[in-house]
C-alpha cells in the first residue's frame, strides 16, 4: 500500500497521523496538527480534515468537521482580496501571491462546503444538501461578483464550482423542490460560471429532459435575464425544444460530441407538437455518418409523411428500398405501400411494396402480416379504379377484397381494417356484407368515428332504405358536436331529396348554410385555411347543392340565384357549370346548355356529371350526334363504371342506333345499379 499523505505548499504530512487523531475523536488536535505542520488557517485545516474523513467514508464524522466551518466569515475574508480586480495583464503571471493564496483558500473552503452538501446527500438529507450546495454558488458569486474570469481560476476551484453548478438542480429534484430545481438550472445556464462546453451541454440536456418529462410547469424566467430582441420561451415545451435545438447545433458545428439521446428527446418533443416537418429539417442537417443512411431516410420519410408531404416521403423510401440498400425493411415497405394506397397512379407500385413486405415478414415481424395484407388490399382497390378493362377491374377488386378479408382475420381488433373492407364491399356492390362491416365498425369504435356513421348511412341509402339511413344520420348528429355536423347535414339533405321531400331538404340546406357561415365567423379565415378541407363542408357546396335541388324541381329562378352565389365563391368550377347547363336545358336552351357542359369539361376533363349530361343532350339532339354521345358516355363509364345514368343513356344511344342487344345490356346494368346507388359516392368518406 502506498503512503497516503496530505501535501500543501510542497510540505507533506502522512494522513495516518491525522486519522489516528480523528479516530480518537480529537478533531481539535488533528486540526492544530495540520495548522502547525502545513501552515494552514483554521478553515483550511478544517476543510482538509473534513475531506479526509469524507474520503475515508466517515460521512457523519466529516459532517461534524465541516459543521465547524464558519462559511460567512470565510467568505468575508476572501471577498476583499479578490474584489481588487487584477489587471488583465497580470492574469497569467502568478506574481500576485496574495491573490493566489486566497484562491487556494477559497478553493479549499468552497470544496469543504461542497463536500458537506455531498455528505448530507449521502445521509439522505437532500434538502439540506441542496441548500449547502446552493451556498457554494452564493459564495462564488460573492467572491467573484463579475462572474468567474476565464483564465484566472485554478483548476480545483473551477472544478468545485462546476460540480456544484451541475449538482444543485439534481439535489433540488431529489428533495422534491421542482421550482427550485428549475431555478437552479436556469442559474447554471444564465450566470457566468466559466463552464466548459461539455459541462454546459450536460446541464442543458438535463434541463431539457426535466422540462420535457418532469411534468412541472416552470415559472417564466425573470425579467432580469431577458435581453431585448432575444427569444424567450413561454412554456416548458418551448424551452425544452429551444435547449435541444441549441444542443443539436453545438453538435453540428463540432463544439460537442454527437449525443443520440438529444436527438431522441428532440424527436419526442416535436412529434408531440405535430411538427415533424421541423424534425425533418434537422435530420437533413445532420452530418453523414451520424445515422446509417437508410435509417436516416426512413426517419425522414416518417417525418415527411407525418407532416403530409407524402411525395417527398415516398421518394426517400424509394431510395432506402433500392435493391442496393435495404429492400426488405418491413416498416419502410409498409409506409411506402400506405402512401401509395392513397393515390390511383401509385397504387400499382404500392401493391408491389405490400407484396414484398408480406414476403419479408417472417419470424420476428410475423405480427405485421395483417398490416401487409391490409395495405395490399387498399392498393389493389385503388388500382382497380384506374384499370383499363372490365376484366382487370373486377379481378383487382376481388383480389382487394380477398386481401382485406384476410387482413381482418389477423387484425381483428383493428376497426380501420373492418371499415376499409366495408368500403370495398360497398364499392363492389355487395351491400349486405358492407352493411355488416359498417355495423361492426360502429360497434367496435363505440360510434366515436364519424366516418363509420357516414358509411352506414350511405350503404343503407344504396339499399334504398332512405328512412333508416336518415335515422342513422340523426343518431350520428346526436353524437357529433355542431362544428363537425356539416357532412352529416349534407347527407341528410340528399336523403330528403331521395325521399322526395324537397322542402325538408331545402330546410336542411338552410340549416347547414347557417352552420357553415357561423363556423366561418367564429374560426376566422386562419383556421379554415390551415385545417384542410377534408371533413368540412364549404359554403360553396351548400349553394351548389341548393342550386341542383331547385333545378331538379324546375324552380329555375331560385336555382339561378343559388348558382350565382356559388359562382361568386368559386368562379371556375365544373360542378356549377353542370348545374348551369341543367338550368339551360330545363328552359329549353339546348345550345347554351351544350356550351355550359363543354366548358365544364374543359375545366375538368374527368368530370363525369358533365360528360353524362353532354352525352344525354347529344343523344336528345338527334341521330347525327349519336356517335359523339356514345363516346362521351363510354368515357364517363370508364371513369365511373357505376354511374347508372351513363348506362341508361348509353342504352338509349344503342337503341336508337339499332343495337338492341347492347341496349339491353346497358339497361340491365342501369337497372341493377339503380337498386344499389348510394346518395353520395363511397369514395367521399375514405
Amino acid at each position, binding site marked *: 500500500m502506498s503512503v497516503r499523505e496530505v501535501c500543501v505548499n510542497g510540505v507533506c504530512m502522512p494522513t495516518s497521523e491525522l486519522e489516528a487523531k480523528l479516530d480518537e475523536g480529537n478533531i481539535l488536535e488533528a486540526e492544530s496538527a495540520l495548522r502547525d505542520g502545513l501552515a494552514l488557517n483554521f478553515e483550511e485545516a478544517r476543510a482538509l480534515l473534513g475531506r479526509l474523513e469524507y474520503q475515508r467514508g466517515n460521512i457523519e464524522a466529516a459532517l461534524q468537521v465541516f459543521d465547524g466551518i464558519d462559511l460567512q466569515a470565510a467568505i468575508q475574508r476572501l471577498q476583499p482580496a479578490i474584489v481588487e480586480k487584477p489587471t488583465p495583464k497580470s492574469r497569467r503571471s502568478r506574481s500576485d501571491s496574495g491573490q493566489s493564496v486566497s484562491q487556494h483558500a477559497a478553493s479549499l473552503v468552497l470544496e469543504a462546503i461542497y463536500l458537506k452538501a455531498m455528505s448530507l446527500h449521502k445521509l439522505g438529507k437532500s434538502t439540506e444538501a441542496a441548500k449547502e450546495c446552493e451556498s457554494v454558488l452564493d459564495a462564488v458569486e460573492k467572491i467573484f461578483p463579475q462572474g468567474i474570469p476565464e483564465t484566472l481560476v485554478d483548476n480545483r476551484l473551477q472544478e468545485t464550482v462546476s460540480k456544484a453548478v451541475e449538482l444543485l438542480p439534481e439535489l433540488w429534484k431529489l428533495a422534491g423542490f421542482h421550482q427550485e430545481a428549475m431555478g437552479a438550472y436556469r442559474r447554471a445556464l444564465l450566470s457566468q460560471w466559466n463552464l466548459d462546453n461539455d459541462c454546459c451541454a450536460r446541464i442543458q440536456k438535463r434541463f431539457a429532459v426535466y422540462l420535457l418529462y418532469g411534468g412541472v410547469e416552470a415559472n417564466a424566467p425573470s425579467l432580469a435575464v431577458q435581453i431585448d430582441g432575444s427569444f424567450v420561451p413561454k412554456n416548458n415545451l418551448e424551452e425544452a425544444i429551444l435547449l435541444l435545438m441549441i444542443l443539436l447545433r453545438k453538435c453540428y458545428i463540432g463544439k460537442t460530441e454527437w449525443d443520440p439521446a438529444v436527438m431522441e428527446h428532440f424527436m419526442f418533443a416535436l412529434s408531440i407538437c405535430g411538427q415533424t416537418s421541423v424534425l425533418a429539417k434537422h435530420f437533413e442537417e445532420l452530418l453523414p455518418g451520424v445515422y446509417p443512411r437508410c435509417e436516416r431516410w426512413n426517419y425522414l420519410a416518417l417525418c415527411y409523411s407525418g407532416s403530409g408531404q407524402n411525395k417527398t416521403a415516398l421518394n426517400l423510401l424509394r431510395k432506402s428500398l433500392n435493391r442496393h440498400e435495404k429492400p426488405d425493411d418491413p416498416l419502410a415497405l409498409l409506409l411506402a405501400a400506405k402512401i401509395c394506397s392513397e393515390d390511383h397512379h401509385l397504387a400499382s407500385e404500392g401493391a408491389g411494396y405490400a407484396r414484398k413486405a408480406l414476403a419479408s415478414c417472417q419470424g420476428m415481424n410475423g405480427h*405485421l402480416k395483417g398490416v401487409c395484407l391490409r395495405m395490399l388490399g387498399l392498393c389493389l382497390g385503388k388500382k382497380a379504379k384506374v384499370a383499363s378493362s372490365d376484366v382487370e377491374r373486377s379481378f383487382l377488386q376481388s383480389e382487394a377484397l380477398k386481401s382485406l378479408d384476410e387482413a381482418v382475420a389477423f387484425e381483428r381488433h383493428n376497426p380501420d381494417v373492418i371499415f376499409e373492407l366495408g368500403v370495398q364491399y360497398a364499392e363492389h356492390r355487395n351491400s349486405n356484407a358492407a352493411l355488416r362491416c359498417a355495423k361492426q365498425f360502429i360497434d367496435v369504435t363505440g360510434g*366515436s368515428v364519424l366516418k363509420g356513421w357516414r358509411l352506414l348511412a350511405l350503404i343503407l341509402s344504396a339499399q334504398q332504405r332512405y328512412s333508416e339511413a336518415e335515422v342513422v344520420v340523426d343518431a350520428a348528429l346526436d353524437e357529433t358536436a355542431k362544428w363537425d355536423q356539416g357532412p352529416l347535414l349534407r347527407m341528410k339533405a340528399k336523403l330528403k331529396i331521395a325521399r322526395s321531400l324537397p322542402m325538408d331538404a331545402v330546410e336542411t340546406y338552410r340549416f347547414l348554410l347557417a352552420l357553415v357561415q357561423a363556423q366561418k365567423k367564429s374560426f376566422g379565415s386562419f383556421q379554415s385555411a390551415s385545417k384542410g378541407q377534408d371533413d368540412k363542408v364549404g359554403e360553396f357546396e351548400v349553394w351548389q347543392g341548393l342550386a341542383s335541388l331547385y333545378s331538379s324541381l324546375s324552380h329555375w329562378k331560385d336555382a339561378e340565384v343559388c348558382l350565382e352565389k356559388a359562382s361568386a365563391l368559386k368562379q371556375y368550377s365544373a360542378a356549377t357549370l353542370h348545374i348551369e347547363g341543367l338550368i339551360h336545358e330545363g328552359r329549353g336552351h339546348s345550345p347554351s346548355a351544350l356550351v355550359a357542359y363543354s366548358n365544364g369539361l374543359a375545366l375538368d376533363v374527368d368530370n363525369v356529371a358533365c360528360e353524362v349530361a353532354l352525352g344525354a343532350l347529344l343523344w336528345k339532339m338527334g341521330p347525327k350526334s349519336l356517335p359523339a354521345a356514345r363516346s362521351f358516355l363510354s368515357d364517363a363509364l370508364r371513369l365511373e363504371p357505376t354511374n347508372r345514368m351513363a348506362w341508361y343513356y348509353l342504352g338509349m344511344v344503342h337503341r336508337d342506333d339499332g343495337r338492341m342487344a347492347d341496349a339491353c345490356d346497358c339497361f340491365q346494368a342501369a337497372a341493377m345499379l339503380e337498386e344499389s346507388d348510394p346518395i353520395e359516392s363511397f369514395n367521399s368518406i375514405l
Partner: protein
Amino acid sequence: MSVPGSPQSPSPESTAATVPARQISHSKLQLVFDSLAVLLDSLPDSISNSDDPSRSLLHDQAVADQITARLRQPLSGAGDDNLCRWLYDTFHAPDPALQLVVLRFLPTLCGVYLLRAVARKPLPGFEAVLLALYAHETKSRNGQAVTVTIPDVAHPSLYHETTRTVTAGKNAATAAATELHIAVVSPSLEPHGTVRATKRARIVGVALELYYSKISLMPVSSKLEFCRFCRLWAGDYDTSGGKLAGNGEDNKGGETREKTREKTGEEIGEKTGEETGEKTREETGEKTREETGEKTREETGGKAREKTGEEIGEKIGDETGDETGEKAGEKTGEETKERAGMKTGEEKEERGGRIPLPWELLQPSLRILGHCVMGSMHPRWLKAEATAAIRSVHGRAVHEMHPQSILATQSLMKSAERVVEDPVEEVNARYGTGVDTEGRIVLNTTPGAEVGAAAAG
C-alpha cells in the same frame, strides 16, 4: 412507495389558496370527508386526525385501493353512482388539494370509462366527472389553444447568442428564410355539456392534459394505473421486447383461436378461456377475492349476453382480472412480485381492450407515459410498466402506420433505455475525487508545488 413531490413541497397554488379557503369553508370540507366516510364505511384515523387531511387523503394507499376497486366495479359510473357524485362534488370543493385527490383517480376512471364506453353503455356518472374536469380546463385556459413557437436558433435566445463567426456568412440568407413555426399542442376548447361519442376522446384527452399538468403531485400508484390502462387501450401489441419485434407464433395462435372461436361460438370459448386463466392465476390469491371476481364476471357476462356486442363481456372480464392482479401486486409491494403480476397480466390481456386512440387522446397519454418512464424519482417497476405501455402503443402505431406516433414512441423507447438511475452519482463520476492515483490528497497552490509534492511522494 416513494412519493415524488414529498410533503415538504406543496404546490405553490395550494399554499396560496388553501389557507384562507379552509377558514371560510371548513364545514364544506368536512362535508367532503364525511360523505367519503359514509361511502367507504369509515375513514382511517390517519386522515381525519391529520393537519392536512386533503394531502393525507391524496397519499393514502388503502383508501385509494378502496376507491379504485369501486371505480372498477361492473356497475360503476351509472347516474346514481355515489362515488362519481362524490368525485364531482369534491372537485368543486374549495380546496385545490382536493382537486388533486379527484385527479388522482382519473387514470382508473378514464380507463374503465373508455373501455366500457366503446360498448355504448350509458355512463353518466363517469361522464359528469370528466365533463367537470373538461369545463375546469376550458375555463382556466379561457378556451384558448395551447401553442408552442418553434424557435429558430439562427436568432439569439435566452440561452444562446448568435456569434458572428458562425452565422456571418449565412446571416443574410437565414434572416430571410426565417419563419416561426407555431405548433398547436392542444387546440382551442369548445364548451361541451354532454359527452358525444365523437368528442369523447377529446374530452378525456383534455382531462388527461389537466392530469399531466399536476402529475408531479400525483402518487406513484395513480401513474401506475395509467400505464396499465394505456397498455390495455393500445391493445397490447408488445409481443416481445424488441423494436418491431413480435413472434409469428403468437399470431398463428391468434389465427387458430380465431377459427375455433368462429366455430364454437365466440362467447363460450372466450369466457371459458378467461376463467381457466383466471383460476390458475388466482391460486395464490385469497378465496374471497376470487369469489367477488367470479361474481362480477357472472354479472357482466349476463349483461353482455343481453347486449349485442360480446366485446363488453370481454373487456369487463379483463378489468376484473386486472383488478385482482393489481391488488395482489400492490399488497406485496415487492418488485419481483410486481413483475410476476405483470406476467400473469400479460396472459389475460392477450386480446387487449383495444379502443380507438385518436391523436387527441394519444398525445396527452404519451406525455404522461414519457413522464412515467423518464421521471427521475420513479421506482423501477413504474418505469417497467410505463415502458411496456410505450411498447404497446408503438406496436399499435406500427400496425396503424401512424408516422407521428411511431416517431414519438420510438424515441421514448430509446430514451427509456438510457435513463440514468442516479444523476448525482453520474455528475460526481465525471469529476476527479481530489485524490491522486496513489491516494494522496494534493493541494496545488502553485504549479511548482504539485510537481514537488509528487516527487516527494
